[in-house]
């Protein structure tokens, strides 16, 4: 099975790495996830989105065998997840930590071995990684003596050890400082470029737009939207035009103003309105345009439409 991207950077392989079919998970009488189906293809970066309590983390935990599903099938490379399988997994859970009383190099080497690396190779890899992130002098320090940011770097190193072909990152930037957030995004990009399949569970819609090929929006345990980022954006709004101008805008026809100021406007287009046609209309109406920026509805706005609140204002699970 090969994975890659075309000259435009689009994912080209459609082989599913993850298959979820009719997955249901009950907590007592409450169905946290209800008959959920989706798949993640080889080489793509997939976003699992949703408000707190919508079932994202539960889905991943069931996928990785930490929970046993109430019903349905969750497969990785065509089989239920098996830690002993021959593919390599990099998992960064939402609740994360390491053996704090142990030495950095020992912990990294241990996880490398658990992932199938030889002890000596794991130690070398770890030392090299620590060099790269500026922690080589802390290799023999106990984790508990490291700062929070340094511990995050070690955690990231453990996640990407053995160049995983499948990366699952649950709220990857949660609690990370800006430096480590940048480091994480670079590491994700590097893994992606190397052909890894990446699944990101996040609230950060900006990251979704930047990183993801396809997304699944979960609401109350059900798939609310599923497809490419563009498909989802189109499904929840046809487009936005932002313009700086002089003059008077013509009467709204095929669009409605979201923001209208003296020299700036944000216009939401009707589904059948072409931005090029709007541009022609504005020019014909004598509007002097300094900027004209047509874009799809942002994922932030999609989230707002689906859940009724901003991503960072979700209710606790």
């Amino acid at each position, binding site marked *: 099975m090969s994975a890659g991207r075309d000259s435009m950077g689009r994912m080209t392989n459609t082989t599913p790495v993850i298959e979820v079919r009719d997955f249901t998970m009950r907590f*007592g009488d409450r169905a946290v996830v209800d008959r959920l189906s989706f798949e993640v293809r080889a080489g793509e970066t997939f976003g699992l989105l949703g408000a707190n309590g919508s079932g994202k983390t539960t889905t991943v935990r069931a996928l990785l065998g930490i*929970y046993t599903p109430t019903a349905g099938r969750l497969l990785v490379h065509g089989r239920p997840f098996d*830690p002993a399988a021959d593919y390599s*997994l990099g*998992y960064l*859970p939402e*609740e994360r930590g390491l*053996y704090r009383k142990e030495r950095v190099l*020992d912990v990294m080497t241990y996880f490398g071995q658990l992932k199938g690396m030889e002890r000596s190779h794991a130690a070398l890899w770890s030392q090299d990684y620590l060099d790269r992130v500026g922690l080589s002098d802390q290799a023999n320090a106990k984790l508990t003596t490291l700062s929070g940011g340094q511990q995050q770097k070690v955690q990231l190193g453990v996640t990407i050890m053995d160049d995983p072909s499948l990366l699952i990152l649950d709220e990857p930037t949660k609690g990370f400082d800006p430096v480590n957030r940048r480091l994480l995004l670079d590491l994700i990009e590097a893994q992606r470029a190397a052909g890894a399949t990446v699944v990101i569970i996040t609230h950060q819609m900006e990251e979704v737009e930047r990183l993801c090929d396809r997304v699944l929006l979960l609401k109350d345990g059900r798939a609310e939207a599923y497809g490419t980022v563009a498909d989802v954006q189109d499904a929840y709004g046809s487009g936005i035009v932002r313009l700086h101008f002089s003059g008077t805008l013509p009467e709204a026809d095929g669009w409605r103003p979201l923001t209208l100021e003296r020299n700036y406007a944000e216009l939401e287009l009707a589904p059948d309105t072409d931005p090029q046609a709007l541009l022609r209309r504005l020019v014909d109406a004598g509007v002097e345009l300094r900027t004209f920026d047509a874009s799809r509805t942002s994922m932030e706005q999609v989230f707002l439409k689906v859940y009724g609140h901003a991503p960072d204002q979700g209710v606790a699970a």
Partner: protein
Amino acid sequence: MKLHNIGTVIAFEVRRTLTKPSFWLTSLSIPLLMAVVFALMWFSNASTIASVDAQREQVVSFTYTDASGIVDPAVAADLGGTLTTDAEGAARAVREGNAELHLDVPADPSTEPVRIVGADLGPIASGQWHVVARDLVEASAAERIGDPVLTSVLTSVDTQAELWKDGERSAGLGGVIAPALFLVLLYMAVLMLGQQMLNITVEEKENRVTEMILTTLDPRVLIIGKVVAVLLVGIIQALVLIVPVTLAGLLIPALAGGGAMATASGMEGLDLAGEPIVVDPARMLVAAGLFVGGFLLFTGLLVAIGSVMPTAKDAGSAFGAVILAMFLPLYTATLVLNDPGSAVSQFLTWFPLTSPVTALLRNAMGSLSLAEGLGVMAVLFAMAGLFLWAGVRLFRQGSISYDKRLHIAKAFRMSGRGEQA
């Protein structure tokens, strides 16, 4: 069950324990402390014996009265005594510091004490007045008897037993020692390793590392690997304890031979009545089986408790209950040994938590039949398996219950359907 990564888990756990200075400090401190204590006891005892001997050889001048007529004046004179009829005057002389010792021997020394009025030479040295008083009466009595054998018989008689059971020579007390060692071993193993067993599943939860671990190995592998690692560490710890003691015994034969050490440690109280230590293979096999079953049972129980508790501190409080269950049979040992067929004895023999100690005790004393032994073993292994199974199940359910105690009933109710407790 595939044991994927079990070697890695065992190696990591053993290595990280053995590389901690605290492990060696703790392990070595036990034999070191024992050596210091035994050395102090040996020197103290040797000093006391020397002091008592010196006091015996020292002639003390004293006065005495004799209402019994037992005291031989010649014996008294040899000991430094002078007969007086003025008891009050002699006592006053001591009180005023003009004499060291006066003794009043009563009319019947077998029922009344000899009155001692002596100078206070300190709590230890003043003890010699008692020695003088006893020597005075005992030596005079022996002189009256006039036969050294009779005198010796009055003070000490040795016995040697030949016990029979069901037509066969019984080992008696000599047969108790070897199987009873397994009981001692069980206590040592649980007391030394119990806390580590309890923390086996707690550490991953406390460090929020469970989820990452569970994507690299099966929880059963993690638990089995950690149990094996704790056992290996325990064996190393035992060797650290035993090797110095054995070496000391070999290099200093006086210590191994007893003598002053035996006296100092109170070992002279362990009288096998001349019977040699006997090793009964059947009883030893049953003891070994009970030990292994009992140890596995407590291991499984402690792992299960650790799986429920969110922190080591919470788990530690449950450890006390387990220890109580281990010591309970000792409080009822007399009843169990005297009447093994009673309802209480039977309950303690078969109830899983009290069973290992009770059965080992009865087996050592020879009141546990082979059939009972095998039956108890079966119960212990079955319960150990059940506890370990429950421990793994609860660990899986409670592994991401990071901050709260796992609701056991809910966990089991849900685990069948794969839900979160």
